[in-house]
């Protein structure tokens, strides 16, 4: 049994009259990969945004390592070790992989009164992070020359630098080629091996079944299933997503 890293207890949220999340209770263990599935509008994005600190839930509690926490902005979530990797990735195309990994957290070297960028140290650290992720991404490569999979590696390396404990990944395999998907799934497995938990949001059934330990299905803001991978099948999950199967 995993130690619960993060627990959501009876979390509800609404936008005006629209009930986006209703009474969702969920736990994510250390180093656990949880697949979060559901149709458009099922509440996946709302859930991720609450965890990333974009806004607090209207009701319910977040418990981080046994302590109740309140995130009023993304900085609070990051301070606890929760990092989000968004679909558009927010990378600067004309900078190198290393520069992007360290964007806003540049390593500086003091020379007299001046503080200068320590290019070599940043490249070395970035190289180490890519090695840790077993990614082929080169530290000195420009992001605009990279494949979708390599971009994911850069975005994930940013979270490693921040010593994330839980990484929220929103559709990381949505807009990339089959070979790159394999690369990203491999990245996710490496995160798990290092004890980092991943909440993996995806529409793509094969990807979810390839890496996840557990699958959670949301439908119209409610959790309708929460099962270990071994205890379910793609057919069952599809039925749960569409509503053909009420709950499992």
């Amino acid at each position, binding site marked *: 049994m995993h130690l619960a890293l993060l627990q959501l207890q009876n979390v509800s949220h609404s936008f005006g009259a629209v009930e986006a999340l209703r009474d969702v209770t969920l736990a994510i263990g250390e180093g656990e990969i949880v697949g979060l599935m559901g149709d458009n509008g099922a509440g996946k994005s709302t859930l991720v945004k609450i965890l990333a600190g974009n806004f607090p839930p209207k009701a319910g509690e977040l418990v981080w390592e046994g302590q109740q926490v309140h995130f009023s902005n993304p900085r609070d979530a990051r301070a606890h070790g929760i990092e989000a990797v968004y679909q558009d990735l927010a990378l*600067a195309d004309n900078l190198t992989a290393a520069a992007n990994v360290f964007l806003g957290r540049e390593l500086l070297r003091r020379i007299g009164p001046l503080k200068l960028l320590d290019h070599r140290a940043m490249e070395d650290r970035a190289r180490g992070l890519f090695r840790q992720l077993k990614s082929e991404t080169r530290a000195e490569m420009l992001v605009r020359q990279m494949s979708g999979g390599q971009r994911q590696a850069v975005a994930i390396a940013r979270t490693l630098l921040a010593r994330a404990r839980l990484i929220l990944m929103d559709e990381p395999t949505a807009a990339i080629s089959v070979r790159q998907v394999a690369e990203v799934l491999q990245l996710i497995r490496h995160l798990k091996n290092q004890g980092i938990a991943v909440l993996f949001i995806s529409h793509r059934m094969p990807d979810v079944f390839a890496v996840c330990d557990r699958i959670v299905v949301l439908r119209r803001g409610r959790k309708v299933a929460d099962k270990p991978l071994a205890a379910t099948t793609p057919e069952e999950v599809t039925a749960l997503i569409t509503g053909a199967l009420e709950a499992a």
Partner: protein
Amino acid sequence: MSTTVAEARPRRSIARWLITQIEIRMLLLTLVVMAGLSAVSSYFLTANNLLNAMDQSVVVGMVALGQTLVILIGGIDLSVGSLAGVTGMVLGLSIPHLGLYGAMALALASGAFAGLINGTLITFGRVAPFVVTLGMMSIGRSMAYVISGANSIGDLPPALGRLSTDVIFGLPVNFATLLVLYAATWWFLSRAKGGRTLYAIGSNAEAARVAGLSIRLWSVLAYVFSGLMSAVAAIFLASRILSIDPIGGNGLELDAIAAVVIGGASLFGGRGSIIGTLFGVFIMVFIRNGLNLLNVSPYWQGTAIGSIIIAAVLVERLLSGRMRG
């Protein structure tokens, strides 16, 4: 572990390697232009003519330096020529009251202040850079006429002229100053966090903001620097011709933008290099100089320069595209 030794050795970053490539390409292009011009005019490579070309590159070079930073963040500064005009007038009119150095300081401060207004309106007022600096271009030129009463100023102190005539380390002082300013700015862009921030803003402002970089501060400072460099250009323009005219610096913005673009910068921001701009300035100056040596009618020179700007950008696009492939 032993297998990763080669990989672990620090390599030059591809970004810097590519930029170096652009710089090397620009150097080669400059040399080709020089070779071509010396083939058609025996006077081109004489010391006298090269000194003349150095002299001509100072004013446009100063303005192009500021323009490079603005273009790097994805902006544009159309006001630089007019600001050179009005700050030149500030210089000339205040010399009798403040002395040469006091007047220089006031001119520099007024250039920086105009840049601050540009940067503030663009960054905080969220008005397009093209619009704000177009407005400032009009205001600057108008103010140059207003404060001068449309008169030019002739009797300038000889010390001002010495900025163009004195020699330091074998180079004219004005050209040496240009090289020092380019070196300092290059160093800042490649080594300082502020320089990295400018590239990041031009590349993906949202990513830079989310990463916690001070994007507003540095956006404003890019325009302040551009305004400041317009005033520097005004000082050297006045020094070269020892006279200040309210129409001074007219059209300088287009030459500066052309030099930056020939130098490999992208008008969409995030890409460009200081050394590239310097060679862009040289190429513009050499070609204009060569056309004069060849007695090409000034009416035709605009067509020649314009074609070269477009051709240079096309060639650069093809070369960098192939290198990426």
